[in-house]
């Protein structure tokens, strides 16, 4: 069968086809009680079968929606694909969502059942029970702490669901196959929440073909073998995880590995040694910070080796990324560096078998690309929206350019509108938003997907993304700049965790900086600077001087004069999802942050202010809040 033919399947049909191809190969693996347990494709199918029949037994019908709030576990896929098999629709909700937010999503998406992994999530659902009368059943996986819920028949244990399903199968053995046969590739199978840097989340309707097309197309460029391994650690509610578990895995037959817990994901990754990985920039920033920190704590010989070879590696990476041949002497040195230092180093993180690493969801600083290419990790940018199943543009091997997002995937057309907006068209484009016909129409106007991003196609055919059309800023003199671009330049400093750039309709660019608590904490320790909290550390004069040096360095490298940062302040708290300052995927909610820190903004643009009393407020994950009074300093960058 041709790969193209896969596009005529629904996801459950493709799963059935996979079972026919290789029933005994591992499809899923989960670490539990310290051991990796395997599900073969056959077992995967059997579990989906009984889950599907169980869902049918509890009253889920064709077109109904089941919400999934869970860490990544195999049962999550059983429930999702089981729902697809009976014509129902799955929807992912972030595990970090607050109860009120969950209630709103459940109401908007008209959810009729919820799957939770543990008590934490079940308790949230219980909190909002009165607001969600449409939810008929809550299914949970981990019975821990649920003792008092068994008497309430609103709740069902997944084992009970399996039993219901098996009973149904015995009564009507052909029902499942019949239902699977009824599925069509253009049916909507999943509602994916868009991350929503502004306003309320929307449910993007995704079809079977959206996912499968994406999986088929990406592996046309970067082939995967059925023996390849993938580690599932991204939140399932994000398109990035669905495209791998629904799209890529089904299209190629790779094995998906589920970590033991969220905290152990990095250690489990090392045990599996995946062949490809996908993540938001934050993951790559974190790994790089860890490498730097460990090297910094190491003894002199290691440091010497690292400092020598990283320079050679970076130089070689520049040649490699530009596609120009390297001088022979550099080639030899780079090979030495790879054998002596980088291979063992990359092995320590668990990425030695990795053929490709993809970053997407937000822009990654150019320096990070060079860094990863230098240590021998083939990190590539991908670009796309939820509405086009996550990926539509990608770097090709040997043609990685940090300032671009690569070329369109096969089967993807790209066009730039007159306003400079990026438009795309492919089989992976979603049919629209759930019950929002006007928004859907605007999204798909003229048959093209409107991304909302400004960009252009350069001479080599690479797509360059500038920023959100709505985010691009202009100084008072009308010079254009992209805040995200400047923020990424700042974030490349190991000491800076997050930054917010201002300057729209102002005379100069200013920023709020979040120092990195781990790296700056270590830095302070080494200098005998004592501190108590993050707030205290941020207020240290020495820390401000350190950041000042970093910003001066960035200013000297700035491509245009109006990119230079003139004033800054160190924010007393980390920007946080719980405070609503970041989206669930870690992007800054610009308008919200601007409003929340309006007083700091005013002070940044009033050069006479050097310090100010502020009241800091925090929201904890359980919704409690706290306030603290503190003093914040404002600094004008020297030599400007």
């Amino acid at each position, binding site marked *: 069968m041709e790969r193209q033919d896969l596009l005529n399947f629904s996801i459950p049909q493709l799963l059935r086809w996979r079972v026919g191809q290789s029933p005994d190969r591992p499809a899923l693996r989960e670490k539990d009680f310290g051991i990796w347990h395997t599900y073969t494709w056959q077992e995967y199918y059997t579990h989906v079968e009984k889950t599907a029949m169980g869902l049918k037994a509890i009253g889920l019908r064709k077109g109904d929606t089941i919400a999934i709030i869970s860490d990544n576990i195999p049962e999550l896929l059983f429930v999702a694909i089981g729902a697809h098999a009976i014509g129902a629709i799955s929807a992912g909700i972030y595990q970090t969502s607050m109860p009120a937010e969950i209630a709103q999503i459940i109401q908007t998406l008209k959810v009729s059942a919820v799957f939770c992994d543990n008590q934490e999530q079940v308790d949230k659902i219980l909190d909002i029970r009165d607001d969600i009368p449409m939810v008929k059943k809550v299914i949970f996986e981990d019975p821990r*702490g649920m003792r008092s819920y068994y008497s309430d028949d609103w709740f069902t244990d997944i084992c009970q669901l399996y039993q219901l399903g098996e009973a149904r199968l015995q009564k009507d053995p052909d029902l499942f196959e019949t239902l699977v046969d009824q599925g069509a590739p253009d049916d909507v199978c999943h509602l994916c929440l868009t991350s929503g840097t502004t306003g309320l989340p929307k449910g993007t309707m995704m079809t079977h073909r959206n996912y499968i097309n994406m999986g088929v197309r990406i592996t046309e460029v970067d082939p995967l073998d059925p023996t390849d391994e993938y580690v599932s650690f991204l939140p399932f509610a994000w398109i990035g995880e669905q495209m791998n578990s629904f799209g890529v895995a089904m299209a190629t037959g790779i094995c998906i590995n589920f970590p033991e817990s969220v*905290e152990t994901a990095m250690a489990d990754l090392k045990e599996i040694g995946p062949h490809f990985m996908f993540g938001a920039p934050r993951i790559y920033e974190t790994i790089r910070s860890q490498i730097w920190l460990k090297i910094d704590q190491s003894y002199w010989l290691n440091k010497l080796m690292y400092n020598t070879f990283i320079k050679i590696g970076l130089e070689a990476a520049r040649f490699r990324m530009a596609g120009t041949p390297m001088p022979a002497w550099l080639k030899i040195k780079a090979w030495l560096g790879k054998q002596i230092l980088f291979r063992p180093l990359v092995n320590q993180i668990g990425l030695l078998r990795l053929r490709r690493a993809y970053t997407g969801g937000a822009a990654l600083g150019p320096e990070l690309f060079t860094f990863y290419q230098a240590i021998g990790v083939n990190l590539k940018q991908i670009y796309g929206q939820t509405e086009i199943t996550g990926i539509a543009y990608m770097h090709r091997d040997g043609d990685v350019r940090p300032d671009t997002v690569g070329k369109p995937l096969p089967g993807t057309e790209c066009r730039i509108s007159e306003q400079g907006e990026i438009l795309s068209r492919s089989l992976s484009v979603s049919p629209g938003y759930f019950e929002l016909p006007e928004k859907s129409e605007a999204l798909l106007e003229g048959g093209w997907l409107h991304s909302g991003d400004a960009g252009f196609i350069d001479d080599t055919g690479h797509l360059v993304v500038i920023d959100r059309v709505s985010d691009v800023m202009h100084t008072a003199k009308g010079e254009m700049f992209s805040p995200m671009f400047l923020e990424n330049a700042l974030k490349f400093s190991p000491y800076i965790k997050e930054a917010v750039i201002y300057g729209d309709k102002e005379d100069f660019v200013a920023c709020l900086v979040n120092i990195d608590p781990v790296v700056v904490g270590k830095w302070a320790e080494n200098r005998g600077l004592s501190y108590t909290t993050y707030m205290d550390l941020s207020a240290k004069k020495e820390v401000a001087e350190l950041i000042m040096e970093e910003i001066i360095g960035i200013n000297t490298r700035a491509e245009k004069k109006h990119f230079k940062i003139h004033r800054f302040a160190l924010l007393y708290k980390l920007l946080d999802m719980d405070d609503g300052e970041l989206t669930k995927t870690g992007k800054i909610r610009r308008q919200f942050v601007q409003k929340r820190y309006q007083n700091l903004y005013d002070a940044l643009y009033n050069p006479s202010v050097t310090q100010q009393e502020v009241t800091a407020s925090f929201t904890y994950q359980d919704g409690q809040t706290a306030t603290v009074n503190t003093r914040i300093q404002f600094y004008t960058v020297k030599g400007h």
Partner: protein
Amino acid sequence: MAELTISDVTLSFGGLKALSDVDMTIEPGLITSIIGPNGAGKTSMLNCISGFYHPTEGTILYKGKQLTQASPHQVSNMGIARAFQNLELFSGLSVLDNLLLARHQNLTYSFFHAMIFVGKAARIEAENRAYVEDVIDFMELEPFRKSLVGNLSYGIQKKVEVARALTLAPDILLLDEPMAGMNIEEKEDIVRFVMDIQKERNITVVLVEHDLGVVMDISDRIYVLDFGEVIGAGTPEEVAQNPAVIDAYIGED
């Protein structure tokens, strides 16, 4: 029948009476707390139960058997495990090794079996590892399985200490101030574990704790000690209204 019956226990060190005529009954399946000001004899009471001290007078009966003169290892083999206030772990060993070590009385194979390590020895080792993994899962210690105990934070070490006691598969768990030195979040965490230990693993819990709020919230029965004597006993509500207890805690005007 009461799980543990303590009758007229007196413990003297020379002329100093750490405990005098203490009577307590620990009912199966409940959380029983012992509270009292510093030096009231709470830890002495646990030491008497776990065999570190032997009462000068009185008896301790466990499921009808005499515990009064039993040594600590006999007590632990009978199904009474203890988590210490001051951590008693091997800081140079990993969490896993610390927990496996607590299973040593279950390692019944001979030296020669161990040399060949097939059949019985391998099977027993696997069974014990499975049990330990169950406890690791229960106490949510997965991220620290291979970490050296000495490198872990105090809050985590406390959890390991409780896990080590659980690894003995006890019927009664004695917890000596499991929440001392913890922040609110860590305390809430431990409270949840204590309740789960009682409800899901059906273990009788004896809790010595300073934090009155926690004790009042989760205990089924409370004993209040002051200067080695029981000055109040009963449900949390009864104890909270007992004038002698209020005096001991708040003091007289």
